[in-house]
């Protein structure tokens, strides 16, 4: 589904990603871990097409297409979804309007019919229940004045509505208490399917107790320095990243 080859990316002339290779197949869940400043968020952003990241080398293939050639919204239309670490507050933009516009934009791009108001409301209520998002928040402005947990749930709701082929969760666990974390993880687990892949970017292994990855990669200094199965998470918890960094340097 996703093949990243020797991806190199600079921000303001400074190279952050120094050659990433990663292959993600449908049905798989990959976790990307690593210390601060290792390039985890840069990887997530560059895949979603955010401005300010200059790809200096390598390529990314998503569902047989050159991903880096696509506009931000085209990536979303193809089925890429980025759950953000810091969801943006949009004062004055109604959450329901936003969700509906978003869903219909993606549906149109897929050649499906737009969803009518009744069908949409049914769907959004059901999905909001699934991610335990208070229905009152649907009527408010997008993320405006939401708590940290509410913002993250709203991200998971968007993901559940758009049903992407590949979802990247960028530090979705940061700033969450244990209950919110569990809700978010449940929401993510519901999305697991043989047709869908997930990349979970996280700083802490805590989230991986709830979302079990098939593969785990450690990113450090802009490179994947180690890959393994889910058991790697526990090793990282006990030993930290130090041994991997040393091993890699050696």
């Amino acid at each position, binding site marked *: 589904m996703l093949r990243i080859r020797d991806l190199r990316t600079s921000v303001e002339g400074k190279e952050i990603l120094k050659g990433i290779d990663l292959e993600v197949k449908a049905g798989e869940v990959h976790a990307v871990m690593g210390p601060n400043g290792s390039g985890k968020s840069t990887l997530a952003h560059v895949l979603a097409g*955010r401005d300010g990241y200059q790809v200096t080398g390598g390529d990314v293939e998503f569902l047989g297409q050159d991903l880096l050639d696509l506009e931000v919204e085209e990536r979303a239309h193809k089925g890429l979804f980025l759950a*953000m670490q810091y969801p943006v507050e949009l004062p004055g933009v109604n959450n329901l309007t936003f969700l509906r*516009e978003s869903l219909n934009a993606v549906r149109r791009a897929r050649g499906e019919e737009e969803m009518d108001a009744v069908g949409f409301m049914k769907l959004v209520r059901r999905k909001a229940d699934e991610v335990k998002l208070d229905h009152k928040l649907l009527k408010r402005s997008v993320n405006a004045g939401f708590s940290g947990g509410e913002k993250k749930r709203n991200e998971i709701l968007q993901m559940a509505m758009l049903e992407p082929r590949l979802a990247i969760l960028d530090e979705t666990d940061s700033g969450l208490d244990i209950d919110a974390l569990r809700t978010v993880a449940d929401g993510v687990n519901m999305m697991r399917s043989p047709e869908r892949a997930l990349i979970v970017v996280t700083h802490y292994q805590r989230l991986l107790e709830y979302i079990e990855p098939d593969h785990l990669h450690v990113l450090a200094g802009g490179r994947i320095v180690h890959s393994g199965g889910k058991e790697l998470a526990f090793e990282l918890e006990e030993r930290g990243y130090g041994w991997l960094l040393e091993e890699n340097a050696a």
Partner: protein
Amino acid sequence: MTLQSQAVSDFQKATQHYIAGLPLDRGAWLTDHRWSAVTRFSDLGFPDKRQEAWRYTSIEGLLKQGFVTSDSDMEVVGTEFEHHFLDGPTAGRVVFVDGAFQPSLSDTHVPGVRINNLRSAMETSDLETLKSVGTLSGPGTHGFSALNMATMRDGALIRVSAGLRLDAPIDLVSISTSSASGRAMRPRHLIVLEQDAEATLVERYLSTSDNAYFTNLVCEVLLEERASLVHQRVQQESPSAYHLADLHIELQADASYRGVNLAIGGAWSRTKIGNSFAAPGASCELHGLYLAGEGQLVDFHLDVDHGVPGCDSRENFRGILYGNGRAVFDGRILVQKQAQKSSAHLSNANLMLSRRAEIDTKPQLEILADDVMCSHGTTVGQIDPQALFYLRSRGLSEERARRLLCLGFASEILEQFESGSLQDHLAELIQQKIGSETKGAS
């Protein structure tokens, strides 16, 4: 002779000619008012850029258009304008087409509300109604408002009886057709709410053509003790039109006024809103949204005068500018020495969609009392790239994302137009207007 002084002398002659041509039976008693306004006009002349209040707003283009003071006697029957009426129940409707009152399109029979029009009040010498005309505006605060007084022809006269609460809005709509082309219209409205009355007035200026014409409007609002008015105003003139509005508001003790203004049409528009608190305990809220695009100028001047203690004022205006659109916002609040326990807050935010757009924003707080709560804030910003990315990452096109963010910016003001269908209609108008402009705006 300069353009201005030539214009003053031309206008003076034309105005004298106009007044001399009025039939004596048509409100002859007002002739004195008219002549004193002519004198006032001669004294004031036209405003120019040397005056601070007109520094950023040139009237040269307006004078060059050479709009003619003439009247339409057209009386419209039929349904062609019905789609411009407010949706839902109304407590009266007053319709003007090309400046002339339209009896068959209007609904003036509302128990407890006296709805009349200036022309018929003058024709019938209805002194009781007419005596309040001009009490707030005087003979004119600048040349144009003096000309309005000198040549006023028609307008809405609305008086809501003491204690009456209207639960539906009064629809006051002025429609300009292609016959208005090249003409100067001088509407003058007077709205009086007696003690404890409550009403909503929706006042709109629309056009069915793209022609150039001039609306030179004066509107006076008198709120007696504890009266409460929600005043929703929409300026949606033809894209070539000139629109000048002077709004005077007076609040007696414990009265409350909440106004919301949308300026979206016209090539050139200026709205001046002045309020004065006549007694303590009153509150005045002014909200506004202006849009200015290619070739457009929109100007708002607020003049809030706290002359007595214990009154509240709040002004919240937002602007969206694109193309080479220009806007002027001048918000003045004066808290006089005796006006202790005043509360006055002013905010103006502007969203610039283009580098060629221009805003001159000037909040002015003059506070002479020492026991007051006052604040002001002004911002000029652009669309947040993070917000744009967020929306696009959810599949929205850049154009759609920009529109949604603009509407989001406007929503705080639009919400003040309480009726859902009016809000939706205005939101749609805004989207249409900025739609093509936001495409690849730079």
